[in-house]
């Protein structure tokens, strides 16, 4: 049988097969070809580049962004002006000026509140030691990291900027002492007494009162489902709580 007897399409197909095998051998077996294969493969790879300003990638759940001063569900501030955050700060970036709550102007459930609260982001290293020191979870960190500034003054954040928004249904501070007492909320998880009474009256045990934490603003922006346990960031270390993907403990 001569070559003329073979139909032309078969010869074409055979040629392509032979060329294909040769190309495959070249790209996988030779040093030069393996080098060429790298950019060829890269043509079909999705780019790794994060399109930052347009499509920012989500940060880790416990990312240390800028701080936030939280509120209770009724709008009272959590900060009691104790300055433990300022003491814990390794960079001396926090300034707290405490003041006394009065019956006419109540800012926080306790005796004292933060009259002025400043975080100097010129010095703050976002380490989170202040968060660990805070006894009322007043100070937490958000996922916001876009706060560079053209001036040093612009990096000193004051209380007005750090304070969280008033949760829905809440009222901005100051409150009247009488109003707070009428609400009768439990502010300290049963550990302390409520309603707060500074000037006269008797203390009431708080365990039976409804929690002020329900429906609070959570820094990560996830609102609790109805029927959920009240979210308390202080319990994140609980070994019974696991996220999907966590290694079993």
């Amino acid at each position: 049988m001569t070559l003329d007897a073979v139909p032309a399409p078969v010869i074409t197909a055979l040629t392509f097969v032979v060329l294909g095998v040769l190309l495959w051998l070249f790209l996988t077996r030779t040093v030069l070809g393996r080098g060429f294969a790298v950019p060829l493969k890269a043509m079909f790879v999705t780019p790794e580049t994060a399109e930052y300003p347009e499509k920012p990638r989500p940060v880790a759940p416990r990312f240390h962004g800028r701080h936030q001063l939280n509120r209770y569900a009724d709008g009272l501030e959590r900060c009691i002006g104790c300055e433990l955050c300022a003491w814990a700060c390794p960079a001396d970036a926090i300034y707290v000026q405490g003041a006394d709550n009065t019956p006419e102007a109540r800012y926080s459930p306790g005796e004292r509140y933060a009259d002025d609260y400043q975080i100097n982001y010129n010095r703050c290293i976002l380490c989170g030691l202040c968060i660990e020191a805070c006894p009322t979870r007043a100070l937490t960190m958000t996922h916001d990291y876009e706060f560079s500034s053209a001036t040093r003054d612009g990096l000193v954040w004051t209380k007005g900027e750090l304070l969280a928004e008033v949760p829905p249904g809440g009222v901005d501070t100051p409150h009247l002492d009488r109003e707070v007492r009428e609400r009768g909320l439990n502010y300290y998880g049963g550990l302390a007494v409520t309603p707060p009474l500074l000037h006269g009256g008797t203390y009431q045990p708080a365990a039976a009162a409804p929690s002020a934490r329900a429906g609070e603003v959570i820094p990560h922006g996830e609102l609790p489902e109805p029927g959920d346990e009240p979210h308390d960031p202080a319990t994140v270390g609980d070994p019974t709580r696991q996220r999907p993907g966590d290694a079993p403990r």
Partner: protein
Amino acid sequence: MGLESKLPSGILLTNVEKFVNYSRANSLWPATFGLACCAIEMMHTGAPRHDMARFGMEVFRASPRQADLMIVAGRVSNKMAPVLRRVYDQMSDPKWVLSMGVCATSGGMFNNYALVQGVDHVVPVDMYVPGCPPRPEMLLDGILKLHARIQGETFAEQGAKT
């Protein structure tokens, strides 16, 4: 300076100014001035994942004469300060300085005798990026804010700076 600073703004060079600022903002070549851990994040910003080349900044110039932006990444020791100033002086006008991280901005947590408490004691700073170290997105945010500022700058302002 020249004619542009003598005339009221917006008369002679409006569109030229816009065009020049557009080019300046979109080919802002940084000078390498990595001093500490912030430099690692700065390298990361230049690497493919965050890719500063998207903003025309891919070439980190080793020579200050070809650089427009000095990213001071890291703590500046007293011994480094004259070197930093020398590099800044060698950069050709117009030039900008970005202070990356809290150590460059104010000394950060290192409030001690060895470090300059803020690089603005040595060179004028145009943008402060907080963080320790700032993640690449934070640096990009600062850079983009600086780009926006450069695009709004007039020649007269630019001249007054130098």
